[in-house]
């Protein structure tokens, strides 16, 4: 699972789509998503048009199709859940298909956007549209230390696994929660060090 989260990003390299300005891409993505969500259930024309636009950007962005399909499958449990729920309802099948089409188009849009735009560019766009600075600082720090902490958790898990011969069932939750607790302790210690480093470099 950790490999999945870390290795999920396809570094698209240099392509037409990844060279577009981030603001334009985000704006277009937003237009596609808003249009798709607001489109009436029968608007086949819109869905087909969006499918063509998305397919074009997949080809222009040189995204591997298999990678996209895997991402879609990973993200669709909610869609499946609603499908199961809808199976208990008579006469809801039509609306379920609409929902599935809509959510697939929106998911593909976001996956394409996030894999062709570096997150720092997204943050720059968000700053330009006046998102509060504190929120942006928090997002930037989170993005920077996300993978550091995920790796740290993985290291702790490995260290524990190499030291525990047999793990009795009832202790497993206890061990996992110790790892999580220790992770928080380390994260807050790291935050202190980061603050000192920021001050040393003349922050504020």
């Amino acid at each position, binding site marked *: *699972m950790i490999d999945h989260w870390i290795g999920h990003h396809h570094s698209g390299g240099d392509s037409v789509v990844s060279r577009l300005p981030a603001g334009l891409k985000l704006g277009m993505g937003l237009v596609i*998503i*808003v249009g798709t*969500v*607001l489109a009436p*259930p029968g608007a086949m024309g819109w869905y087909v048009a969006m499918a063509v636009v998305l397919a074009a950007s997949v080809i222009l962005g040189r995204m591997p199709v298999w990678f996209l399909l895997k*991402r879609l499958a990973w*993200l669709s449990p*909610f*869609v499946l859940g*609603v499908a199961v*729920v*809808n199976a208990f*309802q*008579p*006469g*809801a099948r039509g*609306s379920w298909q609409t*929902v*599935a*089409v*809509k959510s*697939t188009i*929106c*998911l593909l849009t*976001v996956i394409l956007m*996030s894999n062709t735009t570096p*997150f720092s560019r*997204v943050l720059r766009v968000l700053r330009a549209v006046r998102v509060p600075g*504190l*929120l942006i*600082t*928090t*997002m930037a*720090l*989170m993005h*920077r*230390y*996300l993978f*550091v*902490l*995920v790796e*740290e958790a993985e290291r702790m*898990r490995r260290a524990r696994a190499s030291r525990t011969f047999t793990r009795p*069932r009832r202790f*497993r*939750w206890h061990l996992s*929660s110790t*790892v*999580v*607790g220790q*992770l*928080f*302790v380390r*994260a*807050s210690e790291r935050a*202190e060090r*980061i*603050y000192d480093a*920021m001050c040393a470099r003349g922050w504020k």
Partner: protein
Amino acid sequence: MHIPDGFIDGKTAAATVLLSAAGVGLAMRQVRLRLPARRVPLLGLAAAFLFAAQMVNFPVAGGTSGHLMGGVLAAALLGPSAAVAVLTTVLIVQCFLFADGGVLALGANVFNMAIVGGAGGYAIYCGVRRWLPGTRGQVAAVAFAGWCSTVLAAVCCAGQLAWSGTVGWPVAFTAMTSVHMVIGAGEGLISALVLLAIQRARPELANELGGAEPPRRGDELVRYGLLAALGLALFVAPFACPWPDGLESVAARLGFEHSAAPPAVPAPAADYQAPGVRWAVGATALAGAAGTVVVFGLAWLLARLLVPKPDEKAHPAKP
């Protein structure tokens, strides 16, 4: 519980975005007023911590595993406003970086998981802590509030899905609530265990930020409470009335019974016709109410079991 795009319609998205924007704005203001500059990096690190903590697996029977969601834990460690900021950040990054949760549904997700789950859970946590002091009280409060916040967020999510006409209220409410009553038990247990682990490793971390008697948190919580109540009134109250006739008569009296837009889902929202479905909604609500009492008892027992008596801790093994 991340709602993808396409599951909620325009009006629900607009309403949830407005409510969440108000909540996040309030949180930002409070954080700027109260949080010392020293703690600003901690927000980002806490967000990264929550994300990494969600990767740690807790094995459940049969090869499946669960993980921490951490709304109440974050609130208990950082205080409600910082927790809303942190949880919102996590949701935004999950949405834009990992496509987990929709862009237009971001408002709904922030409302359910950050405002109702985080700040609402913190209100429950505070309420329990007033009754049960000490470390034992803290552990019991986190366990109980973890369960409550998960179930409340699920109820809100069901309300939003039903309001959008994606799934009928009876089915959405029954499915979401019953599943999350089970998930919430795990969430409460994990939150309590993690808090206890932090309490053991660095007691001052668990107490200093949000755990120790919070000064003047009342007005802050009242504002979040108002927001959450407004959301519940919008999303859940129209469906939750146990006597649909009463609701319909009110609608008729106000004269918008027939002016309402035709529902996207034809069958279930039209009327509570199927007796089985209606029974299931009542049973789920009843189970939720009974579950609250049972879970509170369990949380208290858990705290008694996990935390040694304060006296023993103060005076270890006499010679």
